[in-house]
């Protein structure tokens, strides 16, 4: 991500607002690293993605993860972000109904993979789900219709999503799995490519077309609106055709580890 941001800075005109935004972003990343402090004050939703053998004790993991989240909040690494929607109460622990969020998957391997993503509210708010056909966009139930929906989402997100960002796109699925899998795209490496040539071409086209909109870093105008687009498909119902877009801001906070059976870290997944 950092390399992509560096490349982006070099693409923007000298002394432009876009270049100065990217310069500030770099200084900010350096400061956050050297001080072990949040890169952005909105430490966002805390999302755990766990792949483990079926014997893995999910309940114990959830309890332990909740305690860790509360401890990280007390240290100022996470902002207290878990708010009761009816009373407005924020008890400061970051643990409550739905927070943190867990996704578990059974894996054949005895090894356990745990990935953590922090996704801020600004970029979460600009996520969008389209039900095709969409008459406003002239978007039919095909890949060109998906393209129209996704570019509209980028247009609507301008200024609000903290560009330059990364898009996660799910074509198909239902309303819930569409968002779930659009977010799972953020677990892919930034430089990976889809083996399927149709999806690969779709991702490349979205990236190119979105950057041609000229929205730029922070929506100040410029060449870099997106750093990557990552897409997947899920089968749909005959009656439904959803295109779901999740937006990840430039802060793109994620980390993952592989644990052996005794719980020792054998691999870090994102450098």
């Amino acid at each position, binding site marked *: 991500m950092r390399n992509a941001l560096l490349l982006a800075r070099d693409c923007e005109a000298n002394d432009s607002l876009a270049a100065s935004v990217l310069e500030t972003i770099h200084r900010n990343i350096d400061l956050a690293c050297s001080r072990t402090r949040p890169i952005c004050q909105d430490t966002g939703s805390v999302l755990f993605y766990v792949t483990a053998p079926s014997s893995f004790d999910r309940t114990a993991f959830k309890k332990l993860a909740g305690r860790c989240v509360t401890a990280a909040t007390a240290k100022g690494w996470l902002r207290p972000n878990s708010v009761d929607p009816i009373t407005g109460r*924020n008890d400061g622990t970051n643990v409550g109904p739905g927070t943190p969020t867990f996704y578990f998957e059974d894996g054949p391997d005895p090894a356990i993979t745990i990935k953590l993503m922090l996704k801020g509210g600004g970029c979460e708010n600009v996520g969008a789900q389209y039900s095709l056909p969409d008459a406003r966009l002239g978007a039919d139930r095909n890949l060109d219709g998906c393209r129209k929906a996704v570019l509209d989402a980028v247009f609507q997100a301008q200024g609000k999503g903290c560009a330059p960002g990364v898009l996660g796109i799910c074509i198909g699925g239902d309303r819930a799995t569409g968002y779930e899998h659009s977010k799972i795209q953020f677990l892919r490496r930034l430089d990976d490519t889809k083996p399927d040539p149709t999806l690969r071409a779709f991702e490349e086209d979205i990236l190119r*077309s979105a950057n041609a*909109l000229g929205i730029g870093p922070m929506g*100040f105008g410029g060449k870099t609106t997106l750093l990557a687009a990552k897409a997947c498909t899920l089968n749909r119902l005959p009656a439904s055709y959803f295109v779901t877009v999740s937006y990840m801001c430039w802060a793109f906070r994620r980390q993952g580890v592989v644990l052996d059976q005794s719980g020792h870290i054998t691999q870090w997944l994102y450098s």
Partner: protein
Amino acid sequence: MRTKPLQTPLSEERVRELRVGDRVVITGVVFTARDTVHKYLAAGGDLPGGVDLRGGVIYHCGPVAVRGNDGRWQIVAAGPTTSYREEPYQAEIIRKFGLRAVIGKGGMGGKTLEALKQHGCVYLHAVGGAAQVLAECVTAVQDVWFLDEFGAPEAMWKLAVADFPAVVTMDATGNSLHELVRASSQTELARALSGSP
């Protein structure tokens, strides 16, 4: 490009000179206010005793704050939040309390733009997500209100700042960088949608 220093409290004259694209640094005092404080004030809620926002600056920010063993607060991360959510309330709050600047990210809408022009106020854009660069400019936490009622991110923090960097993206002459970029990107979007990849 030259950076213009701004010292709070701001005069109407100083604010009306500023133009879209100007880079500024703010020194003095800013008050954080986000969703809950805006809704509260717009609904007729009173400012905390002793708070005067005339000539003042509101910062759309929910900081990460930690309290030391000595009971003093420290701001450890303090970037801007998306301003557009305050669009229903902002114009009235500018008018009622005599604000001269609003700091946030993403820009605001027509109602706020009109209020900037009418009352002599500017919208200053800080870099979204740049929580460390901006927290470095916070030299002291002078006070905090509504902490228990609204929670730490939604509380109103009075922050002393020095050389806090921002860009004027909506000025008091009715210009908005956000409207310009929106219009040009809309044209590009129409072009992209009419052609196939």
